[in-house]
């Protein structure tokens, strides 16, 4: 039995206030992307949208998991969300999440998808509001697999846009998200070749080729 007082599970989590800027309802336990914030009566209210709704840019962070409430679609509708640094119940698209699986936001949806980046499964699936949800924890993104699909090499000492690849090693697929990286290596990053990208020096993103 849950006491429904201040010791209830809801009050043991750090919730933040969010405002829906996506133009559509956000169901419970959704992953959303912060696009800004404003101060309302002294409280920071984060503006959120569906992940990568505006572009295909890969985001290293800025994701929140919404609470067990529906967030309305009307202008100014608000809800609550968490950074999930401890845990949060999140919806997922398909499959059967297993402990230690990595799930992450996918372009164009409010559910987590396997193989995408950022969240680790830390529990077993359950249901909430008719949805299947699983406990996850934000573990961050250290490095991603990238592929040069520009059609031409990206020379050493220059920047280019790379596609972020995910999936089983050896059979990775295009995630639909892309990333601008700086080739700080001494060799050219050939087209159709794989490499890795990481964020260093604050927010600078560097890509290094694994293949020549």
């Amino acid at each position, binding site marked *: 039995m849950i006491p429904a*007082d201040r010791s209830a599970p809801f009050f043991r989590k750090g919730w933040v206030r969010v405002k829906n800027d996506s133009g559509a309802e956000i169901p419970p336990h959704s992953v959303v992307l912060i696009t800004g914030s404003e101060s309302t009566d002294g409280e920071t209210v984060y503006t959120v949208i569906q992940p990568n709704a505006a572009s295909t840019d890969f985001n290293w962070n800025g994701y929140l998991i919404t609470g067990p409430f529906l967030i309305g679609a009307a202008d*100014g509708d*608000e809800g*609550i969300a968490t950074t999930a640094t401890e845990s949060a119940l999140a919806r997922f698209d398909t499959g059967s999440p297993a402990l230690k699986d990595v799930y992450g936001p996918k372009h164009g949806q409010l559910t987590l998808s396997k193989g995408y980046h950022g969240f680790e499964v830390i529990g077993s699936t359950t249901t909430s509001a008719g949805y299947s949800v699983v406990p996850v924890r934000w573990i961050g993104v250290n490095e991603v697999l990238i592929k040069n699909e520009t059609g031409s090499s990206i020379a050493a000492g220059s920047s280019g846009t790379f596609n972020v690849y995910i999936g089983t090693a050896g059979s990775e697929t295009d995630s639909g998200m892309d990333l601008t990286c700086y080739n700080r290596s001494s060799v050219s990053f050939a087209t159709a070749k794989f490499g890795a990208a990481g964020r260093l020096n604050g927010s600078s993103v560097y890509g290094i080729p694994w293949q020549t």
Partner: protein
Amino acid sequence: MPNTASVTVEGIAGIRACRFPFGRGVTPSVACVTCVPQNANPTSLTLTYNGVPLHFPDIALASSHVHRRRDGRHPLMRLFLKDRRWRWAGIRITGDWNRRFASGVVDPAVRKTPAELATLLLNRLGEFGFDVSQMPTGMYPRADWHATRADLALQKLCDDVACEVVLNPLTNRVEIWPSGTGARSATGAGEAVRKYESRLRSFIPSTVTLAGGESLYQYRLQLQAIGRQSNLQEKKLSDVDWAEDLESTEALTFPSLSSNELNQTLALATAWKQFRVSGVEGGGLQVPGCQTPIASTSQYDLKDYILYAVRDANGLLQKLPYYVEGDFWPYADTADNVSGQVFLGSSKLYAERGVVEFETPVFKLTSTGAKEVPELYLQTAYAVRDANGIPQRVSGSINVGGGGGDLLLHHPEIFASYAPTGNTESLAYAEGNAYLAAFARKYQDPIASQITYPGLAFGSLNGIIAQVAWDWSVVEAPSTIVYEGDEMDIEAPSSLARKRNLQVEAML
């Protein structure tokens, strides 16, 4: 004329006269003994008639004074001697009996009949061989003694159950007699003055009425979500003037009302936090088992406890507080509502308004996670008042035929409780009727009388014979006056005066 009567007081010589009105109750009767002036420290008084003594041990001198006589003859001394009941005044008792559960039922662990209470008191007073067997049964007077004078507690107990405390001088033992019972004074026994009867109409009530405590009900009360609108009027939540701007997804913050600070403040303060009683579970206002027509929820007089008690670490019964139960979202990780569960969060009951206010918003979640009105019920005890504000209570009345108005027996500890599991109505009325029966017996034959016998007649008091006055002197023939119905001797305080003095003493 030969005088076969005598009065002796241990340590006192030259007794000239003695008048001794001896009555009922816990206060000592006082004998007035006239004698030659002397140092006085009497310890016992004995009346003797025709060789038969009537002994009053352990008397105490209340006062003495010497007065000069106007005819110049030697002065006389008057000694006022209390019977042994003088010792009772200094004895105290502590005890807690006949506590009741919240439902009004006496806790069996501390239940005492009037006879059992009298036994405790008389034991504490140092009495033994007493007789309390005639005390009425079926009632359980509250006895909450905290270093209370045992004699006053005994008088109150007997007054409450229409009994009389009698110190039987023949046996020197205490007897408790139900008022209105016992043998009458004999007539045709050579009395010196025949029996004259009188009807003390002003002391006999016309009716005796029992007023019990409020009847209490505990059928679940339905709670309705309310809000306070911009004119500060309280309304059903869906009817407040800012409700149309409210989104179904809002309950913690109300950004849809941000353009009107007053409305947003009122929403934050009241929406999903305040619920008022709208009727009984299942709809309607009428409470099962209640005879009073109920036209408004204002007729519910809410209490903040339920009809159940538990024992604390000291074994004392403690009432349990009200609670709310129903279907609501319990602030869990998931969006699932609970059903039929007790709400264990913080709340406050505003009984006079019939409103429960929660510290945090209480709502249900729909299948899509939107907010909706929870289904909540209040579990608490409540009385029901009629349209004139009079609460339903256990009551009863009997006619006793006097002219003294209505004698009200106020017993708030006797009340009926009604709940889905049953009711205590028959128990409460049985106890109330026991009190009425005791007073019906007291006033069944409300005739006072006085008869005078020659000599010193020895007998005991009872529930009818209230007082005996022995009169002896060296110059006159002795006599005995027997009073039925009340203590009417003009040389002693009336029973009413005695009891009023006791009430004053109880306040000291």
